[in-house]
């Protein structure tokens, strides 16, 4: 059964955030917090000799960018409880120091699944990230589950 909501909200932009330039230190600290050992993310000099000619951020670095509004003002509600169901992340080009990133957020999809414990509603929020050259950097789909 399709959940009952106003489908015109799908694809509407609910947030646009511009971030300050990414620093070398932002990347190094993030990599360290994950315990990364890959020199492309952790070692400025070794990364300079690598395929990108310099330091790049680990793929999940973009998940640390916090938009001004994490969720839309009129977030649809289908249940009392909400939890983080998962993420899908697509990386097109790596983030580098000096990048000026922009994030545009939309409600991408809403669907229902019926399991053993009844109906669950999935709200998929999409963050599209571009850089100062207008290149597509990454897309994050965030699945919020309500029941």
């Amino acid at each position, binding site marked *: 059964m399709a959940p009952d909501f106003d489908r015109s909200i799908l694809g509407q932009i609910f947030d646009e955030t511009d971030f300050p330039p990414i620093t070398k230190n932002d990347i190094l600290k993030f990599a*360290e917090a994950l315990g990364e050992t890959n020199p492309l993310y952790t070692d400025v000099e070794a990364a300079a000799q690598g395929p990108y000619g310099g330091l790049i951020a680990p793929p999940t670095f973009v998940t640390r960018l916090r938009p001004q509004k994490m969720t839309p003002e009129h977030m649809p509600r289908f249940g009392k409880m909400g939890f983080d169901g998962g993420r899908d992340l697509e990386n097109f080009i*790596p983030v580098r120091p000096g990048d000026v990133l922009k994030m545009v957020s939309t409600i991408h999809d809403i669907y229902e699944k019926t399991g053993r414990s009844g109906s669950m509603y999935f709200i998929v929020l999409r963050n599209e990230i571009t850089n100062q050259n207008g290149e597509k950097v990454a897309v994050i789909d965030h699945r919020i589950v309500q029941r």
Partner: protein
Amino acid sequence: MRTIYFEDVEEGDELPPIDMLLTKDFVRRYARTAGMDFPRFTDDEGARKEGLPGMIAPGVLSMGLLARLISEWNPAAQITRIGTTFRSPVLPDCNIHLLGFVTQKDDEQHTAECDIWMENDDGERWVIGTAAVALPTKAA
């Protein structure tokens, strides 16, 4: 830098597992670094007030650790897609095991698909996912 080429990867290859004690300090430090300095990720009392059994690890931390599993296997692999499902809350301090294997190779694109997951000591899979990686090739 250690490099595994597309030609040397076989379907079924296991990624070298990462076994670690996920401590509260590790989770707190990640939460602070990632701008997720919320009680549910930093302190047991605060998390209980939100109805949780204690502080939990952010889902994106689990995702980041699974990306690290791939990056430690092959630092030259470029992760183009990673998808994770958070099946169960991850409560530190606990042992976690990050595991995965190559499920498919694409000879045209020089890419590989991997199944990846995080499990506890009892083999319960708390986080499951898949990733696509682009691999360097000897022919290039």
